[in-house]
């Protein structure tokens, strides 16, 4: 068996294939389909300080080669997460990364504190959810504000802090640089693109929340571009995501500079997508006689 291990933000993973926040529930939902313990890492749905209901339906709208979602952070809050959900998630024996979303800097810090020492392997700061109106977006689009939040969280926890960036900005590199300087140990790229759809029958927006986040293969070129730009600039690892559906797509992100990848919307098209991607990477390394798969990281810009 090929060695696919990797370390991201100090988190050791048996392979670089994670799941993307919000698309994989607590893992349990998929556990009857395959061995969830064979993933690189689990990432939770966004966790807020208080329980959060999320947006009114419809929350999903299919688009060409993708979908819009406006789930809007429905979750039971950090305390219920720790007591009711986390124990089950830890049971798979792979690192659990908590995706957290505060509406203010102070909330981010408070959530981080409550998760410290609970056994989560790291925090993924979602400073970029397009489905939350209360400031989440602004936080993630202004380098200084983003850096402030990251710094505060880093100071308040011993857990490694991964920062998830939005592509809905003029300059993602500046943002990446700012949060790296503020102490991020890794970056997740990308969150969804802000989009919407209108139902021509009702002549009204399809989504209950009007706007939503676009994900799936449709956005893959935007995500590859972000990974390519950012991974050449910062010296912390990048977790690539956005439309990865097949092994070939995962490899594209790795060549662009991703040290790990996360599979999100692909689960909706093929629930076995992540499993197939793991096999693909192993097979690819074997067939191409690659001893250390990490040579492939950023190969598209390293080897000219």
């Amino acid at each position, binding site marked *: 068996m090929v060695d696919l291990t990797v370390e991201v933000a100090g988190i050791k993973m048996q392979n670089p294939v994670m799941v993307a926040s919000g698309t994989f529930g607590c893992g349990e939902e998929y556990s009857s389909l395959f061995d969830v313990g064979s993933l690189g890492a689990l990432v939770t749905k966004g966790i807020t300080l208080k329980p959060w209901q999320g947006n*009114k*339906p419809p929350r999903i709208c*299919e688009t*060409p080669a993708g979908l819009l*979602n406006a*789930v809007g952070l429905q979750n039971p809050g950090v305390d219920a997460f720790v007591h009711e959900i986390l124990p089950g998630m830890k049971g798979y024996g792979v690192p659990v990364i908590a995706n957290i979303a505060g509406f203010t800097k102070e909330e981010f810090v408070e959530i981080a504190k409550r998760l410290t020492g609970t056994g989560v392997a790291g925090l993924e700061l979602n400073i970029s959810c397009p489905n939350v109106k209360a400031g989440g977006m602004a936080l993630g689009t202004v380098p200084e504000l983003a850096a402030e939040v990251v710094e505060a969280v880093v100071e308040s926890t011993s857990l490694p802090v991964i920062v998830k960036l939005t592509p809905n900005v003029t300059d993602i590199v500046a943002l990446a640089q700012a949060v790296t300087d503020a102490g991020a140990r890794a970056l997740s790229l990308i969150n969804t693109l802000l989009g919407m759809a209108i139902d021509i029958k009702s002549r009204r927006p399809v989504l*209950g929340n009007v706007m939503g986040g676009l994900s*799936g293969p449709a956005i893959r070129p935007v995500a590859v571009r972000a990974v390519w730009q950012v991974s050449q600039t910062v010296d912390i690892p990048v977790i690539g995501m956005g439309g990865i559906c097949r092994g070939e797509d995962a490899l594209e992100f790795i060549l662009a500079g991703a040290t790990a990848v996360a599979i999100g919307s692909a689960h*909706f*098209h093929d629930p076995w997508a992540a499993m197939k991607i793991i096999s693909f990477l192993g097979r690819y390394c074997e067939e191409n006689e690659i001893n250390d798969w990490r040579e492939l990281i950023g190969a598209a810009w390293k080897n000219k």
Partner: protein
Amino acid sequence: METGRKTGAHPSEHAAGVLEQIALASDCFLLTVAAPNLARAVSPGQFALLGCGTVFDPFLRRPLSIHQVDVERGEVSFLYRAKGAGTQWLSQRRRGDVIPVLGPLGRGFRHSGSGKKGLLVGAGLGAAPLLFLAQELAGRKWSLVILLGGRTKAGILRPDAFERFGTLKTITEDGSTPKKGTIIDLLQEELKKGGWDTIYACGPRAVLKVIQGISCRTGIPAQISVEERMACGLGACLGCVCRSAHSSGYLRVCKEGPVFDAGEVLLDG
């Protein structure tokens, strides 16, 4: 003892070979596939997600109720309307083609005891999940009256199949059946006769809402099969929710549903 969900019926993927694709009237199709494991595992009211299209457009799988099951022959049928790109693609599959089918999914109809009196209400495509239910209830010696409504006579789907399991009554909006009116008219008429143990209904939201009201007023328990746009179908993405009547939160149609007790959900968004 409540039944209706087979224990250990975990969802899995079935590479389902198309056996038959019959065009019924008004863009509706009856698709039968070979899926022996699914046939064995599924209960009435549950659904499956069918992968449609060759590459990534359509991207999402389509949820369809299980319409009919033949466990011995290992066959599962779906009754559906070819509407958009996904179901149109589906309607073009022919014998020998293979469709990825994820199922069984969701919580189906509940029923208990035997020899009860059930009223099945199917508006248009709402007939889809009711045939399998009718078969099961008839097998438990329920006496059934099945109400089917459509805009036209062609919209009354599979009347012959339903007649095997109970008394079928139909109504159309254009009067192309003897009775003219809406399914609700027919339902009101039937309710007057009294003695019903449970109402089982599927159809457009407007119809389901009326039935919620009727169930509440009359005290006759009702179960309704609800539709919402879905992504994962497994309860993981929180995409398919419906407002809960008992809490301030939401219920997942793909997990806590698609069949809800009439009083469980609010259908206004």
